[in-house]
């Protein structure tokens, strides 16, 4: 019998085939888009790990150092004041001796002079030695084994960053020195091992990338997060409770609400300008202080916390409030005794996510002076932790990325790994909290 559309359902018309092809193409675009997005994630993560994991390992040179009494303590009475008078320059010959002894002992042939041999060590070595001697004056005159940091080119050579081609115009290292490195590596004098100091240590100046660590800036971040938590959580929760539970519907409430949603989208650098103008220029709080950083990040995080807190308050069904009011509780009691505890997991999750956001934020910190500053001393008390100049993890990473020596780039990537570990931990915690306590009404 005649069909309106001509042919049987079982045969595809040309038009349907064309349309199905278009459909398949369209779907492929979607898959491609997702694939590109995921690919970017993979590229980013592999870049971070392939370039940053090296920072957790460091090249060390093990030497037996003879702590010569005539150099370190001429009077021989172990008087600390006298010992302190010997500067790091005074330690240089001792280190040179130790290297020369080692090289001779191993029978390595090298055209290098003692000074160039000692050049394999970090400029930090003399300071390390001096600190040890001052701490243990009794060891003077004895021979002690030390593990010194190798200088960054040697470290780079072992990690493949520095090659014999790349050092042609490099003043810091020569081909002969690399020959010596090869010989010392073969003799297990130079080895690459895990470097805890990268995680816990302080930053170091431009010339000593091998000694730079994240520890102090991590403390800076910690103090900032402490400030953010102490201020943003109570203020954010209080503001949310007012807006969600008590605020009358009027123009003022409207303004506040519009304001909060807009503040959430204000570029972070604007908060930095605010911090610079208000906290530093006007209130004369100290530059580079974690307290100021914390205040700026608090203002920046507040909208996020308020928005998520309001969402969790909203999710508590009105019947709970009605029940509390029904047994004669005041509105305030209903909120604080019933609604708030029920909303707590949601509030906590939102707060952790807000904190994670604040932890990774860099731009406002640049303006309040947390960059360009070598965070070399760990704070010794809560007050100094809050008020004395410090860096923060992202600021430290930016600082390293800006420095000329490529050895710092590895540390910047390594710093990112540490930062990401914090962020992942915080976000996982938030997810677990949400899964564990989430209630579906």
């Amino acid at each position, binding site marked *: 019998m005649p069909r309106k559309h001509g042919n049987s359902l079982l045969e595809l018309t040309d038009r349907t085939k064309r349309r199905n092809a278009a459909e398949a193409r369209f779907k492929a675009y979607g898959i491609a888009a997702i694939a590109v997005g995921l690919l970017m994630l993979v590229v980013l993560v592999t870049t971070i790990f392939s370039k940053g994991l090296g920072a957790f390992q460091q090249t060390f040179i093990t030497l037996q150092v003879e702590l010569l009494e005539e150099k370190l303590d001429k009077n021989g009475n172990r008087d600390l004041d006298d010992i302190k008078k010997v500067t790091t320059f005074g330690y240089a010959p001792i280190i040179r001796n130790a290297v020369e002894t080692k090289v001779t002992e191993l029978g390595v042939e090298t055209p290098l002079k003692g000074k160039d041999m000692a050049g394999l060590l970090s400029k930090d070595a003399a300071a390390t030695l001096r600190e040890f001697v001052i701490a243990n004056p009794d060891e003077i005159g004895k021979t002690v084994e030390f593990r010194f940091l190798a200088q960054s080119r040697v470290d780079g050579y072992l990690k493949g960053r520095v090659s014999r081609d790349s050092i042609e115009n490099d003043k810091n290292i020569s081909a002969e020195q690399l020959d010596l490195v090869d010989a010392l590596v073969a003799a297990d004098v130079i080895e690459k091992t895990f470097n805890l100091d990268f995680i816990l240590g302080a930053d170091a100046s431009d010339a000593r990338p091998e000694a730079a660590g994240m520890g102090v800036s991590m403390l800076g971040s910690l103090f900032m997060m402490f400030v953010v938590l102490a201020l943003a959580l*109570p203020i954010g929760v209080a503001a949310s409770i007012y807006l969600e539970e008590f605020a009358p519907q009027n123009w003022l409430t409207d303004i506040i609400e519009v304001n909060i949603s807009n503040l959430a989208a204000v570029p972070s650098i604007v908060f930095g300008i605010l911090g610079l103008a208000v906290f530093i220029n006007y209130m004369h709080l100290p530059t580079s202080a974690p307290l100021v950083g914390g205040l700026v990040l608090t203002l920046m995080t507040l909208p996020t916390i308020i928005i998520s807190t309001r969402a969790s308050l909203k999710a508590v069904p009105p019947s709970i409030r009605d029940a509390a009011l029904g047994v004669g509780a005041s509105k305030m009691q209903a909120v604080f005794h019933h609604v708030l505890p029920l909303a707590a997991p949601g509030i906590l999750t939102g707060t952790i996510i807000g904190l994670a956001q604040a932890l990774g934020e860099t731009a406002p910190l640049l303006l309040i002076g947390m960059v360009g500053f070598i965070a070399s001393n760990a704070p010794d008390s809560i007050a100094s932790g809050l008020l004395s100049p410090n860096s923060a993890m992202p600021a430290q990473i930016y600082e390293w990325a800006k420095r000329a020596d490529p050895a710092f780039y590895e540390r910047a990537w390594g710093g990112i790994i540490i930062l990401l570990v914090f962020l992942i931990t915080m976000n996982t915690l938030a997810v677990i909290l949400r899964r564990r306590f989430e209630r579906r009404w």
Partner: protein
Amino acid sequence: MPTFWLVLALIALSVAGFFLGRNRALVSAGGNSKDLHSLPSYYGHNVALSALVPALALLAIWLLVQPMIIDQRVSSMIPEETISEGSTIGLVMSDVRRVAEGLDLAVAEGAMTQEQARNLRSEFSDVRGRLGEIGVALGADVRPEVLRAAQTYRTLSNTGNIAMTVMVALVALGGFGWSYGRTHKDFRARNVVEQGILALLILAASLAILTTIGIVLSMLFETRNFFSLHSWTDFFFGGTWAPNFRGDSDLSILPLLWGTLYISVIALLVAVPIGLFAAIYLSEYASKTTRSFAKPLLEILAGIPTIVYGLFALLTVGPALVRFFGQGENGILGVEWMSGATSVLTAGVVMGIMLIPFVSSLSDDIINAVPQAMRDGSLGLGATRSETVRQVVMPAALPGIVGAVLLAASRAIGETMIVVMGAGAIAKFSLNPLDSMTTITTRIVSQLTGDTDFASPETLVAFALGLTLFVLTLGLNVLALYIVRKYREQYD
């Protein structure tokens, strides 16, 4: 830290107030809490809050106002004519503060007695040297008027701090005494406490407005200073950005705006198609399992701090682009179009990657808000899914998606770290995406970091740039939120 101890003392007083207040209430009811108007703890809270809150408020206000008054008093001591060429009252005042801090430190370390610090005369003694000994380095010898100003500054600060401590203590004790006196079994403690808490809640909520006012005022104030030193026509219409230290800088926003917009456009060209198609696939095609792993994975991209993207641009994407478009014969394409790693393309592409999840999750929400009935209508007529998406879902979601793109644009314009590290520092009008260019946010950072002199137009211009940026992004946000809200209402 006298303030710190003061706060601790206030807290201690308030805790004590809680227990004393509760006790007194119970005693007034003969130990029977049923006779009380409110629960016993409310009486405690009443005393605690009355002791703490007004005193803390006074302390906060005092801390804000005191520096202002002292600055005014001290700066009036410095005669106009002693401010040397090229310097300003602001710079002299920062010297004054530094000397004053040095003297404080000297006293604290025992290098000087209070008496000596008060009577020190630069005519008779080497102040710079003496301060240098305790680690306060001064740039130049201390002039007599600066030293005297510093001494006055110290005296005023000290007096101020003492007055503050006394006043705050008085207010705290007054609040304590008053509320403690009122504590009686018939006192409506709960109502009073709840009123107080409500006031605190309102205060917290208005902090958002205060922040906005703070942002606008701080930038307006410095922007006004900038325009008094530099012509506004040059800023808005000049065409050249070339700060220098001779005092005839060209500071026009236009080349910066061009760089900003160019980079943002490239970022959106990357993010919008990828984000949008990803959102379409996730909401229209993907199975539940695909969605449940692809969506959170994509959103990880949004959670990565911008410093990571900045480093990625500077150290990975930039050099990769140079290998393609630069290095002449040695490059992959054998061309010499790109000299350095920083370029509009570098920053734009990386920023685009960052914005992918932003666009995709906003669009996902918006596409999901299109009623299923509309899809059914189209599918029921024999449309394929892609026809349904392109001809029914997209037109319906268009306003919302426009809003999402505007929000993404606002993010791109305000983004700082990626452009600071990936875009470069050269302000110019160029169409070549491989050129290094600079943006508004980059210039804000560079003008406000390092040694800054808040009396020179080269520093103050950052506030004018910041204000422009704020207005620009605020405008985009307000527009976008308005559009999205309108869109949502349509389907609610």
